[in-house]
């Protein structure tokens, strides 16, 4: 008598066999004590495996709204179809050039706002000085402390030094011509049969909402309480504006995540407040500015509570964290909004 091979009993218990194979096995089991015993042993093994793997389950896993992820997916499709494709597939030098232009806009925007807005809670000094003061604590600022921390890695500005120099040499330099003449990004083209999901944004197309701020990295939508827990109550909120979405981005095991809060103003425009390590935040904002052809502006950074993270030398490293407000508004307005920023 041919007994049932062990792997076949596994497949049988896993319901991976066809109906006819199951019937054949069941007929054999009815007559064969040895195979029945084998089946019982394998069933026990299978159950124990499930139980052991069950020990490794995560707790408190909360599924974000499908719509929230769909928004981000729409952004990806825009990137695949729109101008961003060009920069993604361009040579590293071209991409860095674009980032440098974005950084120039960031810095120029900050410079142009200088003097228009009282210091408020922002860091003292010009944007360049603020970035320098953030950079000096990170340990990466030697040689070029001014740009070492808040610029994209690879320091695009070094390869295109003209842009920041220009802003320093001429404080009246304005980035507006680029903003005014830049063509608006193409919005999402939905695939046939797919409609944009209903979103809590009532006055703005959902795809526009996400496409207008292509922040790099993996963002996860979280409820308020989870964001507060993950960031140590450092969720940056603009007082008086309704919150649409809170997202976090994982940085490392020792650091609090980046957190980004999307708000909507009464006219329907989306304004984001972002809090995180100065260097990573600078990278993201510079990238967003480059990818939106300078249409997005940012406020002056406001320093928040730093983190102390483990370094390879063993001594804790102080990681400077800042918050900033970004959106398609002029810099003066964004700076003004930092006065209403509450970090909690």
């Amino acid at each position, binding site marked *: 008598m041919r007994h049932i091979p062990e792997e076949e009993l596994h497949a049988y218990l*896993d319901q991976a066999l066809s109906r006819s194979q199951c019937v054949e096995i069941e007929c054999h089991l009815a007559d064969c004590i040895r195979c029945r015993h084998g089946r019982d042993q394998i069933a026990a093994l299978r159950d124990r495996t499930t139980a052991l793997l069950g020990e490794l389950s995560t707790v408190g896993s909360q599924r974000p709204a*499908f719509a929230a992820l769909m928004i981000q997916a*729409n952004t*990806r499709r825009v990137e695949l179809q729109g101008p961003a494709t060009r920069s993604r597939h361009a040579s590293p030098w071209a991409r860095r050039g674009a980032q440098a232009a974005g950084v120039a806009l960031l810095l120029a925007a900050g410079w142009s706002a200088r003097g228009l807005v009282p210091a408020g809670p922002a860091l003292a000094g010009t944007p360049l000085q603020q970035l320098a003061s953030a950079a000096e604590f990170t340990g990466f600022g030697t040689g070029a402390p001014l740009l070492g921390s808040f610029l994209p890695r690879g320091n695009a500005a070094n390869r295109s030094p003209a842009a920041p120099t220009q802003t320093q040499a001429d404080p009246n330099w304005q980035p507006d011509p680029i903003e005014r003449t830049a063509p608006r990004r193409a919005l999402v083209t939905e695939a046939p049969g797919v409609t944009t999901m209903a979103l809590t944004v009532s006055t703005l197309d959902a795809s526009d909402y996400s496409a207008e701020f292509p922040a790099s990295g*993996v963002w996860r939508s979280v409820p308020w309480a989870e964001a507060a827990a993950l960031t140590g109550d450092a969720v940056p909120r603009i007082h008086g504006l309704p919150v649409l979405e809170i997202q976090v981005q994982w940085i490392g095991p020792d650091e609090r995540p980046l957190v980004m809060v999307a708000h909507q103003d009464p006219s329907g425009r989306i304004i984001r407040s972002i809090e995180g390590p100065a260097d990573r935040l600078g990278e993201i904002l510079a990238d967003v500015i480059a990818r939106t052809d300078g249409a997005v502006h940012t406020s002056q950074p406001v320093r928040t509570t730093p983190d102390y993270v483990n370094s*390879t030398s063993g001594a804790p490293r102080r990681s400077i964290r800042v918050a900033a407000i970004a959106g398609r508004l002029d810099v003066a307005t964004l700076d003004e909004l930092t006065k209403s920023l509450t970090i909690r």
Partner: protein
Amino acid sequence: MKDELERLYQTTYASVVRFLYRKVWDADRAEDLAQEVFIRAMAHRPEKPRAWVFAVAANLARDEARSAIRRRRHLTLLTNEPAMLSAPEMPADEAVEHDERMGQVREALSVLSDRDREVLLLWDAGMSYPEIAEQSGLAVGAVGTTLARARKRLIETYDRQEAGRKQHAAHS
């Protein structure tokens, strides 16, 4: 397609998080990656979304492991992180016991070969034999053999550890 994806998302998200967690050993990171997986699925609209989701999850986990090594996080990966996954309301003694068990299961899993572990985790995530075969590159008929070996080895290793732990406790 959207409805299908939404249904898949609702029914599979937890499995994908669990699958990823057992590869990256970081609950937050597993959730980040799971969201990334579904965002990609929504953007790409694959023909076989379920298999596609797990294939992308496996790839992301592999990338994550590489970057984790680059970040010299391997020490963290090999040590227990008991506090992270203990249920907050669990009494301290139970939590310690739970963490010990978790550490043992992780160690037992790490003894399996990459392929055996992958197949076992995919099966535990609810994938069918043909789906596992497609993703792992095995023949459908070989999935049962692989699973049989993986289960047996996992349990044997765990039991051996458990016996050693009890022996150690008896001596101390």
